[in-house]
């Protein structure tokens, strides 16, 4: 799937072509994004809007505040739950998963 990016803009020049494209997976599906952009932005441009399912009422949640404050975009990234995907940079090979419920913390290594 091609990403939905804004290309022609009267004021801004995003220079998407100069950015480094990396591969990552979302719930096992391979996707592409730019290195360093927020994980949430990469997902959104790939058409993914549901980032987690709430523990009690099982409501879908996604992007909301984009400044790391509201906890709406928590996901499991490389096994770590409750990652604020709006302020976490995308890296090559990241394993991003929908978070269902509270997320389980692994004991310290």
């Amino acid at each position, binding site marked *: 799937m091609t990403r*939905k990016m804004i290309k022609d803009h009267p004021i*801004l020049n995003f220079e*998407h072509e100069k950015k480094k494209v990396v591969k990552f997976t979302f719930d096992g599906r391979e996707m592409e994004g730019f290195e360093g*952009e927020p994980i949430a932005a990469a997902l959104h*441009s790939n058409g993914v809007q549901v980032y987690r399912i709430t523990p009690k009422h099982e409501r879908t*949640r996604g992007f909301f505040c984009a*400044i790391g*404050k*509201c906890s709406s975009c928590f996901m499991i990234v490389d096994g770590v739950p409750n990652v604020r995907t709006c302020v976490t940079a995308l890296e090559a090979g990241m394993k991003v998963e929908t978070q269902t419920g509270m997320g389980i913390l692994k004991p310290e290594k």
Partner: protein
Amino acid sequence: MKTTEILVVGGGPAGLSAAIEAASLGCDVVLMDSDLKLGGQLIKQTHKFFGSREEFAGTRGFEIGNLLFDEVEKYKKEGKLEIFSNTTVTGYYKEDGIVSYTIGEETYDLIKPQRIVMATGAQEKRIAFPNNDLPGVYGAGAVQTLMNVYGVAPGEKVLMIGAGNIGLIVSYQLMQAGVKVAGIVEAMPRIGGYWVHAAKIRRLGVPIYLQHTITEALGDKVIEGAVIQEIDNTFKLVGEPMKIDCDTICMAIGLTPTCELLWSAGCEMKFVPQLCGYVARRDAMMRTSHPDIWVAGDAAGIEEASAAMVEGRIAGLAAAASLKPEGCQMLKEKSTDYLKRLENLRAGETGAKIRCGLEQVCCECWG
């Protein structure tokens, strides 16, 4: 444990300005910002700013940001300013003045600063309606982040809630990005924002529904539409519900100061409607009731970037001068000019609300 003379929390226009001034007096400054990029709300603004020439009126927001970054770079090179981005300050412990923070999601650490400038900006307000938690309901700041910083369209057709300046400006920006705006919903009988912004929107044929509110968002897992309805002067629903076809609902109903850290520090706080929430009491130099803590920008009351930058400069300078006696003369000279600039920004009819708010929280000087 890490130490510093000055810690600036928040790297928006207020925090950057504070850090620049404090470093210019020779202080060692650490600035922490939770976002991946510095600049706060300022770097998302593509329109030309209002205000006075000293405060870059006529320049686009993100370009003003670049000017600040140049100054920041200079002090970084001189080794006076250390920047931590993607670093969230999570607590202030008043027993010993220690500040806790996390870098990214997993690295937790502590720092002990001698002085702190809190420039944490603001958070979006929300309103209650069924399904307001579904993906597709986004804050205006978030919509701007997606489209203006990262070049990602937030959706195909957006319903804007709120016809204040933010609602109007973001609607226009959406259209510049090639996104359709289904309409703008405003509870008040008149447009709250500046007329120039409203006129641009109207010319493009976007309906502005005055005295209307959103009663429901439609959709199962994500937004598939919205229902709006007319309200009367007492905000009671009248008329028939109307279905709006949209895949995104953008909330531009206002901001409220981010003030948790000020509360934890025990600063005297007051609820001031004109400043949009709880704010710290402060003196003219932006010092709070806590002698080591200053405040600046939207965190001190919702205003504009122009005022945020001047407040930041004052706070940074004053915090630094409290550590460097030789800086007091500089503070005296510069602050006269800065205070004058603030007065100009807040003059006239448009500044009346802010002036009224400030009267309720500003004190001459802490004894």
